[in-house]
């Protein structure tokens, strides 16, 4: 059989377009579009982060060497920031439909339910495609990206804005950045080593049914109650 006739991996084919469907022994969690948006946000975020941190503190000055020095960072950083905001905007509208919080999530996930989750206790049977922590992360990122953009524009063009606004912009930019870094460390930790089987949802696009039942029981029920998806046989 020639390469041209070799059947494509069905899950990969389905995961290009569809989400929340069972294909073979896998569930598609993020279609190709969502994954591309996510990684665009990630790349622009890290370029912004690593060009911004050496400007923030000489302790991180060594990062500037990767871009060709501090003055190169100063040129790249604002544009990378704008790109990050645009990518975040796409991500916001891609996912906002799934991010509406229930009253229980709104009240609990900023504290008690978050700690319950971090103690690895059994997931609430009512947890859908995203848990309350992920939803909080989503809204924090959205608000943070807006805060970074607005304060960043003021820092970028200082003479166009009054003194006090400039001073506050440094504080807002710093606070948002600090929250982002703390959040991103945990985002990466939870999405890779802490919860095996998660990272593939952002590369291949799929998860196993066991993973889905463990982390997102309600989503698992919704997906598995639907008829199994049969990819087009060519």
């Amino acid at each position, binding site marked *: 059989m020639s390469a041209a006739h070799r059947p494509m991996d069905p899950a990969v084919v389905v995961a290009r377009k569809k989400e929340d469907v069972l294909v073979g022994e896998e569930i598609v969690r993020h279609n190709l579009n969502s994954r591309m948006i996510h990684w665009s946000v990630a790349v622009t975020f890290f370029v912004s982060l690593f060009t911004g941190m050496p400007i*923030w503190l000489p302790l991180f000055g060594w990062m500037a060497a990767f871009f060709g020095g*501090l003055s190169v960072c100063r040129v790249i950083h604002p544009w990378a920031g704008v790109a990050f905001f645009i990518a975040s905007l796409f991500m916001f509208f891609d996912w906002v439909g799934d991010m509406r919080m229930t009253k229980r999530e709104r009240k609990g996930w900023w504290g008690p339910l978050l700690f319950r989750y971090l103690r690895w206790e059994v997931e609430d049977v009512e947890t859908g495609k995203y848990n309350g922590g992920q939803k909080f992360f989503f809204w924090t990122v959205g608000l943070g990206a807006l805060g970074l953009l607005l304060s960043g524009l003021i*820092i970028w063009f*200082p003479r166009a804005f009054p003194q006090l606004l400039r001073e506050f912009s440094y504080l807002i930019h710093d606070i948002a950045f600090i929250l982002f*870094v703390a959040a991103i460390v945990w985002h990466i*930790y939870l999405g890779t080593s802490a919860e095996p089987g998660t990272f593939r949802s952002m590369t291949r696009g799929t998860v196993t049914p066991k993973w889905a039942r463990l982390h997102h029981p309600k989503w698992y029920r919704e997906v598995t109650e639907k008829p199994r998806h049969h990819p087009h046989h060519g």
Partner: protein
Amino acid sequence: MSQNLEIRRSSAAVWGSLSGIRSIPTVAKYVDTTTCIGCKACEAACIEWNDLRRVGTQQTGTYQTLPTLHAEYWNLIRFNERDFDGGIAWLMRKDQCMHCDEPGCLAACPAPGAIVQYANGIVDVNPDQCIGCGYCETGCPFDVPRFHQTTGKMAKCTLCVDRVSVGLEPACIKACPTGCLQFGTKDDMVAMGLRRVDQLKASGFKEAALYNPQGVNGTSVVTVLAHGDHPEWYALPADPHVPLLVKFWKSVLRPLGVVAVFGAVIGAFGHYMNLGRKGVKGADAHDANLPDEISRKGEHE
């Protein structure tokens, strides 16, 4: 009086003071607004010596050359007019970098060595290190530093550090025909200023004062004002200081941020060591025959 260019303070440096081996006197300019005739010889000398020739004048209805300082115009005589009973006063004042003892520009600057304060008190931008971010514009209480579009660096008066370091007086001082500009050690210039203030008081200017604002621990440009109770009449801030929010940002928020950044990393690592992974055994495998129960490290061993 030749000057050693030892550095006293540097922007974004870990340690505040980098000098102190030698005792080097602080230098200062003396500006007497009461004997300035507004001839602008100092402006011309400044652009001549520093080779700043790209700015045209701008008519704003007064004799003033430009509305404010410019990246290529570091010394500007401000022609402030004021009505008094029986006449008008021209309160001409030399606007330039004040070379603060506690420079707000240097405090705000994120680039190591881009703004330095020499041991003699001169505050200077080092173009090699400057990244043109403009933070110094926000840090400066006198609105002095300007972004230079062509070089992409910040620019301001250097107090002619290149002349001073070889024992010459700044170009503006050299050009002044009335002697209202003088140059020397800060102690001498302050003493001269206070003598002049006494003279002015004796001749009826009861509120005369020497402008050497203590909010920035004094400046290396000391200015004699006939109306010392109203520095704003001369377009000078009454109580300049390094902006409080800039200080808070640099000295409180940044250290807290460092703790938060490293705390997040250490916290995640500690969490992993304490609780391990969450997951059904083999949840990332394709094999559907693996056991279902939730595993917590330690519970099954």
